[in-house]
């Protein structure tokens, strides 16, 4: 499993601690949408909220450090039509998330898809309308 390099966990952790509790609602321009990285971790929290859902995932960086990644998803209305439910992700379960990293270099990104441990894939949109 490819895990994005974390140059300095101390820096990353500091960035998370210092990040203001704002920016809850991003436009796509906040992310490198045409770049996708993969993280694997344990779900800490799943928030089924408008305008975006959030999956907080604790990721082990392989160096003994744990970093909480904030994965931002599309709205519940869209995701429900793609097979998601309000309880589809539970704290404690392991997930793999393909996401586009944020431009501000924080441990956050825009979800492309989530893969549960049993292989179930949660896409970020229903199949396109023909």
């Amino acid at each position: 499993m490819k895990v994005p390099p974390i140059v300095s966990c101390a820096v990353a952790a500091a960035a998370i601690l210092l990040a203001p509790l704002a920016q809850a609602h991003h436009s796509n321009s906040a992310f490198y949408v045409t770049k996708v990285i993969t993280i694997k971790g344990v779900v800490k929290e799943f928030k089924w909220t408008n305008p975006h859902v959030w999956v907080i995932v604790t990721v082990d960086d392989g160096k003994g450090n744990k970093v909480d990644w904030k994965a931002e998803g599309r709205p519940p209305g869209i995701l429900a039509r793609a097979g998601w439910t309000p309880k589809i992700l539970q704290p404690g379960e392991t997930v793999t998330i393909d996401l586009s990293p944020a431009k501000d270099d924080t441990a956050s990104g825009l979800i492309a898809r989530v893969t549960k441990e049993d292989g179930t894939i949660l896409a970020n949109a229903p199949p396109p309308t023909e």
Partner: protein
Amino acid sequence: MKALLIALSVTGAMYAQAPPDFSGVYYPVNPFGRFTGGPAAGAATSTPKGPPPRPTASAPLSDGSRGRAPDAPSLTPEYMAKWEMISKTRIAGSSEYDLTAKCLPPGMPGMMSMAYGMEVMQNKDKITFFSELNDALRRVYLDGRKPSQKVLDDPTYAGYSTGHWEGGTLLVDTVALRDNTFIEGFTPHSDAMTVHERIRLKEPGLLEDQITVTDPKALTKPWETVKTYRKAKPGTGTDELREFACAEGLGEAK
């Protein structure tokens, strides 16, 4: 006998002119254009053989870093400079000029992209278009009223729309629009923008909106685009839109 023929003729004309019923929930056909690794790239439905391909994108690129599309509205130098300025902020990662990121309505005509789904409610005197994105709506009055001076002096995001039927096509004119919304993407416009639409059922279940945007200050020529929407089938679980309640997430970062 003559009276009967006239009566039959009038009745026939009434049937011929009965407007179609656009009511229903719709989803846009190809709302984002085509881009590699689109939103449904990881859809489980596309995986009959082996694992699905890893997505290469999470959303369409929307910061202008690849320039303007060939079919984008043709802007005057003043408004092209505005577009370039906004593009720079978006490339830098800012949502400053993104109204919907602030939970504001997308406004006309951008809202007719209806990226998250649309519900049409129709009666004889009014047709209402509801957008799941930001719970935005617009009303089109069909009862012959015209925008008053009071309306013209009070621009709104959706503007003021009046329409009438020509056969099976609904012709709509929209005025009194705010100047801080976008025509499409983040293409700016002036307070002189007006929108004309021809809306019809192209085939059963497929609604088409031919949109013409006129803005003598911002556009070098009127801009035309066509949106199509597929009606959701009952019993599929998709013929109901969900509440958006955008403000629910404002101010939360967790």
